[in-house]
């Protein structure tokens, strides 16, 4: 594996353009655009305030930089570097800003979720959407960018509005049967909208594009409910992860549960493989501990790690959550399907060092990866069944059905920088790791 040089960025703002040609990073006020292959600086822009959020437009022509403190959004063009655009929300404040799928509209959510303003870069038109709901995931665009679903709350009731992104025409507006809508997500085939309730109630509703309720699913009541939801790329399965440490898979024909995946503390399934990360610290003799050595050669502190296969039955380390605190660290908090629908990766919050990989063809556990530190982030390769994860040390771990490997990310200096998130880029077969 080849690594590029390390370059600075702040606030985890480092994004590759959707067409894979450029890499944009933000350092305080500056926006640096580099060519992806050569990493030469192509453009350099300066914003009015430290940038909090940066996003590429879908056609890779524009970049928006949002500065929430000042309520400003600045848009930069790659084709015409001297083109500029500034959106000022004024005293109404700014909480979040995002592109629309066509790359020509910007949706700003104002403070206190008073409204969502849709600014157009093509026309002078401004649209306002009132009463947006402040929740985990209140806005979602369809994969083809045609429709947008927005959760609203009026008079203590949840509503869902479906807009046509073309001209922001309100297509449908219907009441949702949730108590307190926590999130919504379109299916990849753009025809079904999954809407789930607050964690106080386990309820997931499935609405069709035209607002009809197709089905509703509730596994149990009273206990804490849904924590995370993920669609499979073929829209065949809907994976629902909940606080009871189980993932329930619903099928798209009957919208009923076909199976549930449990995350027990003892794995006795004989077909699963348990990979355990084992660290080896290099043994150091006292004569090597010179200052020169310490400053120059950081391999002293770097640890080699490799995976070992543990014999079944295997114990998974469990951390009991504090029962008195809200949002307890228990339950399935992250789900991700592989691009070919064959695998599902899940993370259970009270087993933070383990990552579970399930085979969707056999609907059974395939592998468990046990790391030495809590797993921070994992992401699937958009082309092949390969999973990359990081745990906050200087390594990136890769899993594929053939096996597991841990890769050291070379970083200068003594401090081990920790990768916080990963991004897999489709055309370039590369992985951007930022710390």
């Amino acid at each position, binding site marked *: 594996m080849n690594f590029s040089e390390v370059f600075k960025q702040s606030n985890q703002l480092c994004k590759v353009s959707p067409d894979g040609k450029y890499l944009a990073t933000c350092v305080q006020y500056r926006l640096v655009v580099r060519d992806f292959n050569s990493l030469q600086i192509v453009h350099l822009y300066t914003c009015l305030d430290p940038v909090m959020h940066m996003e590429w437009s*879908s*056609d890779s022509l*524009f970049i928006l930089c949002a500065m929430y403190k000042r*309520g400003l959004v600045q848009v930069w*063009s790659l084709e015409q570097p*001297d*083109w*500029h*655009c*500034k*959106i*000022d*929300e*004024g*005293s*109404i404040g700014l909480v979040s800003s995002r592109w629309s799928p*066509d*790359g*020509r509209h910007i949706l700003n959510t104002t403070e*206190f*979720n*008073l*409204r969502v*303003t849709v*600014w157009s*870069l*093509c*026309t*002078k038109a*401004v649209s306002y959407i009132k*009463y947006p709901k402040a929740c985990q995931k209140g806005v979602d665009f369809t994969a083809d960018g*045609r*429709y947008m679903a927005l959760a609203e*709350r*009026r*008079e*203590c009731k949840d509503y869902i509005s479906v807009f*046509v992104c*073309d*001209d922001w*025409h309100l*297509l449908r507006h219907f009441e949702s049967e949730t*108590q*307190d809508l926590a999130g919504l997500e379109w299916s990849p*085939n*753009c*025809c079904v909208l999954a809407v789930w309730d607050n964690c*106080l109630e386990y309820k997931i509703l499935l609405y*069709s*594009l*035209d607002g009809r309720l197709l089905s509703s699913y509730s596994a149990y009541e*009273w206990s804490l409910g849904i924590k995370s939801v993920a669609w499979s790329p073929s829209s065949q399965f809907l994976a629902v992860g909940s606080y009871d440490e189980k993932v329930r898979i619903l099928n*798209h*024909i009957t919208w009923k549960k076909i199976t549930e995946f449990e995350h027990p503390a003892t794995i006795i399934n004989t077909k699963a493989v348990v990979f355990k990360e084992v660290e080896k610290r290099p043994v150091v003799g006292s004569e090597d501990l010179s200052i020169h050595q310490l400053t120059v050669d950081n391999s002293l502190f770097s640890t080699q790690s490799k995976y070992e296969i543990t014999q079944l039955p295997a114990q998974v380390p469990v951390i009991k959550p504090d029962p008195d605190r809200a949002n307890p660290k228990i339950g399935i908090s992250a789900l991700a399907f592989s691009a070919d629908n064959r695998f599902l990766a899940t993370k259970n919050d009270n087993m933070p060092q383990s990552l579970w990989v399930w085979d969707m063809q056999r609907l059974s556990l395939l592998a468990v990866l046990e790391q030495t530190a809590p797993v921070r982030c994992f992401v699937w390769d958009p082309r092949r069944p390969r999973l990359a994860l990081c745990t906050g040390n200087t390594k990136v771990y890769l899993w594929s059905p053939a096996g597991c490997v841990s890769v050291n990310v070379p970083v200068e200096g003594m401090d081990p920088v920790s990768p916080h998130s990963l991004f897999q880029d489709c055309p370039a077969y590369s992985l951007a790791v930022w710390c």
Partner: protein
Amino acid sequence: MGDWWTPTMMPDPSLDTKELSSISGISMSPSRQNLHHSLHSTMALPKTSYSVLSAFCTEENISQCIAYINQEVCSLGLTGVSLESKSGSLSAVPVLNLLYEVLQLQRRAQRALHELETQQLKNGSDLEHLQHSNCRLKDQLEHTRRDNSGLHEGERQLQLKIKTLQNWLKSEKEEVQKLQSIISSRATQYNHDTKRKERECTKLKERLNQLLMDKRDKKLCESFQMSYFCILCLHLCSAIEISNHVGRSDGKRGLWKTGKMEARHEGEMYRALLSDYETRQRSLMMENSELKKVLQHMKKDMITILSPKKPCIKTEPANDSLEQAVSEGEEEIGDSSRETLEQSCEQAREQLTNSIRLQWRKLKSHMERLDSQASLVACQEREGEEMMSRKEHEEEMQRMRMELQQCKEFIHMQQQLLQQQLSSPCDEETAALLNDCYTLEEKERLKEEWRLFNEQKRNFEQERKNFTEAAIRLGHERKAFEEDRAAWLKTQFLNMTPFVDRKRPALSEPHSALSVGECP
């Protein structure tokens, strides 16, 4: 009995039997010694019997004794003895008879006594045995009673435990229900409170919005007097400042919002939904047809499995089912063609599934039967096989043994010969002689061959010489022949040609002359 006449000095009637036995004891012949011993064993003879005997009958009271004896004997049912009048003495015959009868009686009595005694012993032992068993059974009964009471006690305790557990379970259930009701009531309360707070929040938001709008309007009104362009600079209200508007991403121009547009959007939405449903339906149909095909194949396979070729039908019950299956199979195959026509028909589907189920059941029963048969046959075969294999085994063994023997003999012989060969003889002379013999033999052979060879060589030489001579002769003869020919041709030519005097050209070239002669 017998007390109506008691002679003087009559001994006790209870001692009668003892007296009689003592009498018998006195006049016993040696052949009856054993009987006497047995009698002795049964009865203890008092030593005083002899003296008593003398007291019973004396010379004086013979008739009285006889009368008494007659009395006694009559009471026993025997014939008495009579006193002969002539000499006042008893005739021996009736007395002996009487004695004999009495002895018989006595023997019978003894036997009866013996039997009774044995019976008594048996009864005694039986009684003992019964007593023992009685004791044992009593103990057992006691023991079981104790166990029973213990078990009862245990059962009672368990029942108590069950009751307590059930009570506990009931109380837990009640508690759970109570908690659930508490939770639900609290949930409703929280919901209510949340709604209230939410309403407050919305009111605040509305107010805030209004205030901001008012502020903006005020500022706008104020700044409207100012230059138009400065509106964009005010940062109190939200505004966009853009150097130039960008074209749309798809390059088209924006359209006005009209009813037609709305209808178009609706149409597009429904089209998207419909296409999704259609693709889904298509894939489901395909899957369905695939599964149906698989089921039909399975059915056909099952039919063929259940109806094998006729000769290898095993048992009667299997036969019936097979025939049935065959007939049904034919029916089924006929059906399947119909089925393919009406694929989506409800009845066809049901028919297919029902027929599959039927076939499967038949196959299962067939397999079970085969399994049982196979196990039976396997048991039988195992025994038969053993015997068979043993016989074969034996034969094989015999054959191998013989072979082994033969080989051994052969090897032995070889070894002997080899030994003879290798073992050096006692004297070296014989060895040398032997060697000489061998070499001599070889020499002779070689000589013979040499001789032959030489002979052949000579013959060959001779022939070669003859050949050469013959060749020389042949050469000479040829030459002579050629000369003769030439002369003959010359004469011929000379005779043929008209020019008789021209002899010279014909001589030099007889050949060419001939050829000239032929073509005039």
